[in-house]
Structure formats: structure tokens, C-alpha cells
């Protein structure tokens, strides 16, 4: 039981990271009908930037500044590389985002350097022990920060004029334009939000370990998360992220008992297995709209 609870606690922490990444994917998808494959790069860039900032200005300000800076980078990338392509086939834009991903990742990766870098988080691998269950501080922090961000996002989409305009534009772009909504502004804000969220996710993914080039692999698991939650559902992204995070950690933890013959831990492919099973039952994801287009 303690093993299970420990795995769940770790899964919630991991799932929070997935949720942040998946939210970025969903926000961009809703506004442009494109899956942006540049999210992993923004995540890595965010973590690298914070690792440079935190020794001088402290961890928390570094995360805030880092997230805003990466949001700015995403804004520029959208304006320069994506906006001229608006109106082209969705497929073309998706391919361009892959190119952006590679460029940003290589540039950010060049700053990692040879010495071990850390994001400078205050908790490291510390953990509380509650009745035999170890709960890492970083997982709690990830969960709390994600909760706050999710609440802030929902408030943003519900009450602010631009948030409301983004929802309207996701439902019917032409009708939103007729109301005076600038579609360019909607695209820009969605990319900035996605970039900022990815940067925060990167910080939590990198905390408790040293930075390496392969950090972005974590962002790939956000793809099954958004497919599972439904491409166009923010709530689905959050719940899907937590669900897949927990499933992955539980499988990883019980790997030895369940699959004694396998040497490689099956935990890392769990997100995809869960996605396959869910898609068999609900092809449009758990919370997605039924007629979501194919991409």
C-alpha cells in the first residue's frame, strides 16, 4: 500500500508537468487547429534559462522571469514563422513547428554546456515521510503551482475580454472576426501562453536532477495526454495529464512484480498504452468534441 501511495504521489507530480505541457498544446490547437510540435523546445529553453537566472536573482523570480521570457520568444516565433503561413494547410504549419522545435532546441541545448547544470530549485530530492509514504517536495510544488496556473487560466478564459475572444474564435473564427476580434492577437496570445506554460513545466521536469539534452523527451508524453483528454478540451488536458502521470508511475513502480521477464522499464511507454486503450472506447478522447478534425 505504501508503495502504491508513493507511486501515486510521484505520478501526481509528473502528471502536473504533463498537464502544463498539454494545456499549451490544447490552447494552440483551439486557436489555430494546429498541433504545435515546438512545445518540447520551449520547455527545454525555459529550464535552461532558469538555470542561468536563478543563481543571480533567486529561484522563484527566475521562474517568473524565465516563463515570461519564453512566452516572449514564443510570441516572436509565432509572428515570424507561423503568421505568414496562416491559411496554408494545417499539415504545412505542423511541419514548420517541427522545424522551430529543432532550431530552438539546438540553440537552448548549446547553453547547457559540459558542467552539470541545475535549475537551482530549493527542494532538490527532499521528501516528507507520511506513514511510510515518501512524498517528494518537488512533486508537491509541481502540483500546487499547476493548480494555481490552471485556476488562473480558467479565470482568464472566463472573464477577460481577450480570453473570451479566444474562446469565441475557437468556436467560429469568421463570426469572431465580424465582432472585431483580431485573429492575429488570438494566435499571439495562445502561443505566448503555451510558451510560458512549457517553460514552467520544464523547470519542474528538470528539478531534482541535472539538466541534459534529453529533457524534452518528457514533453512527448504530453501528446498521448492531449489525445486522451480530447484535443480541444482544457479540462481534459489537466485530468488526462494527471491520469497518465499516475498510471506511468504506478506501472514503473510495480514493474518488477508485474513483468519479471522484462529488463527495460515499461513505465515510459505506459502513456501510449493508456492512450490506445482509451481511443478504442472513445475515439475523440475523454472530453473532446465528437467532430474534432483529424490532424
Amino acid at each position, binding site marked *: 500500500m505504501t508503495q502504491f501511495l508513493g507511486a501515486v504521489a510521484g505520478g501526481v507530480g509528473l502528471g502536473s508537468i504533463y498537464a502544463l505541457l498539454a494545456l499549451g498544446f490544447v490552447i494552440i490547437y483551439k486557436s489555430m487547429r494546429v498541433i504545435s510540435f515546438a512545445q518540447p523546445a520551449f520547455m527545454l529553453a525555459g529550464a535552461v534559462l532558469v538555470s542561468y537566472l536563478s543563481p543571480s536573482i533567486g529561484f522563484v523570480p527566475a521562474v517568473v522571469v524565465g516563463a515570461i521570457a519564453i512566452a516572449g520568444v514564443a510570441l516572436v516565433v509565432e509572428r515570424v514563422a507561423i503568421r505568414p503561413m496562416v491559411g496554408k494547410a494545417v499539415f504545412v504549419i505542423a511541419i514548420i513547428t517541427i522545424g522551430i522545435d529543432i532550431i530552438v532546441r539546438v540553440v537552448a541545448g548549446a547553453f547547457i554546456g559540459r558542467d552539470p547544470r541545475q535549475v537551482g530549485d530549493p527542494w532538490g530530492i527532499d521528501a516528507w515521510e507520511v506513514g511510510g509514504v515518501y512524498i517528494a517536495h518537488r512533486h508537491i510544488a509541481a502540483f500546487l503551482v499547476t493548480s494555481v496556473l490552471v485556476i488562473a487560466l480558467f479565470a482568464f478564459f472566463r472573464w477577460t*475580454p481577450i480570453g*473570451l*475572444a479566444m*474562446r*469565441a474564435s475557437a*468556436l*467560429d*473564427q*469568421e*463570426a*469572431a*472576426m*465580424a*465582432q*472585431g*476580434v*483580431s485573429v492575429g492577437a488570438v494566435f499571439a496570445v495562445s502561443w505566448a501562453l503555451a510558451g510560458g506554460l512549457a517553460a514552467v513545466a520544464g523547470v519542474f521536469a528538470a528539478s531534482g536532477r541535472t539538466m541534459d539534452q534529453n529533457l524534452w523527451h518528457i514533453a512527448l508524453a504530453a501528446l498521448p495526454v492531449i489525445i486522451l483528454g480530447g484535443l480541444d478540451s482544457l479540462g481534459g488536458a489537466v485530468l488526462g495529464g494527471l491520469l497518465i502521470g499516475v498510471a506511468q508511475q504506478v506501472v514503473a513502480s510495480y514493474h518488477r512484480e508485474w513483468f519479471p521477464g522484462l529488463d527495460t522499464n515499461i513505465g515510459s511507454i505506459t502513456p501510449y498504452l493508456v492512450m490506445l486503450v482509451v481511443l478504442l472506447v472513445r475515439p475523440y478522447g475523454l472530453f473532446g468534441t465528437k467532430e474534432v478534425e483529424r490532424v
Partner: protein
Amino acid sequence: MLAVQNLEVVYDDVVLALRGVSLEVPDGRIVALLGANGGGKSTLLRSLSGLLDVHDGEIRKGTVTLDGASVGQLSPSALARRGIKHVLEGRRVFKELTTEENLRVGAHADRRNLKTNLERVYGLFPVLRERRDGQAGLLSGGEQQMLAIGRALMSDPRYLLLDEPSLGLAPRVVEQIRDIVVEINGQGTGILLVEQNATMALEIAHHGYVLENGRVVMDRPAAELREDADVREFYLGLGAEGEVASSFRNVKHYRRRKRWAS
């Protein structure tokens, strides 16, 4: 005054939808735009509201002017801020948002008097106040049309471009919409009304245009159009004697002539 001069619009670089149209919408008047399907009525509205881009349309010749200044190349949001609001054909409400959220999006172009405008719209359409927290997609067709018009009114526009507001509505609801259009006009908004329901449109309009194959073929005060024999026969469904055609036997038969010219 909102006007177009010698406007030519091309879709996808090949389809010529408007061939030199000139039209004027004076402040505070109702102008009706009649014509068969494919005549270019919606295209004309799109060139006034900047929404041609969405449909790969492009102004090739001619100008769109607002008070004499050319506005043909402005974005839809810039035109909305200048007070030109387009109510799209087929209502196009944001179905998953609530009624009030729809209206708040409508105020996007000018949020200064949101409260007053909201009260004004609820005054014009009391049924929307009753359903303010319900999903817009669950409103009836007539209520959705009211919401679409109310949404456009939320930024207090100078000109309202209405694309077939009576589409698919019961006669009684059409009357309701008609009265509301008159009331909105009475409050000082200029209206360009595109309609298949020519009877309704000519009843309330001050001036009328008939558009066929991308050309203006008639441009007269509405009262004259109501009396014009051709308009009566083709658009008002009245026989040559002024009676509603009671049997298809009495409807004149025309042989279609195919011509490559014109």
C-alpha cells in the same frame, strides 16, 4: 456615408463575383439589397466588413469608402472599430458560450459602454435577458437571430450589415425581426439589408438595389421598386395583375436563353 464605387471582387483569382458595383448607404437609412442567389449580395457585404480574406476573395478594382476615405484594405477588426458591423448569414452564434458571453464578445470592438449597450440589447430583445445564462446553441432559430443582431449592436455600430436575417424563420418571427430592424434604424443606425424576402425588405427600406450576376441592375427608392412591374413579378411573387399567383398555371413561362456574352 458608407459607399462602394465600381467595385470588382474576385474569388480564388478566377471567379468574378462583383463586376463594377456602386452603392451607397447613407447614415440612418435602411437600404435593401435584393437579388437571386449567387448575385453577389453576400460578397458585397464581405467587402464592406473586410471578411473577403477569409473566403480568398480580393478587391480587384474600385473602392470602398467611409465618409470619403478609402477603407477597402482595412482588417475586419479595424472596420468593426470604425463602426461597421456585419451580421453573418445563418446566425453564426457561438453555440457553446452563454447568451451573455456572446454579447460580451460582440462588445469587443468598443468596450467603453458595455453596460449601457447590454441594457439596450436586453431592452430590444427581452427574451435574451431571460436566457442570458443558457447556452446560445440551445436558443430557438429566431432567438439565435436576435442574439446575432444584438451581438453586433453591442459595440454601438454606425452601420449594420444584415445578411438574410429572415432565413429559415416563421412568418411571425420575420415580422418581429422586421420591427426590430426598424427600431434599430430609428435609434440612428444605418442598415444595409440583404434579403430573399423582398416583400419584407422593401416594406421597411428607404432605398433599394437589385443585384444580378454581380451587377446593379436597379437602383431606385424602395417605393418605386415596390411598384415596378418586374420587381413585383420576380421578387415579390405577385402576378402581372398585382394578385398573388394562385396557381402555377398562371405563372408566366420563360424559356431560358443561354448566352456566353455578358
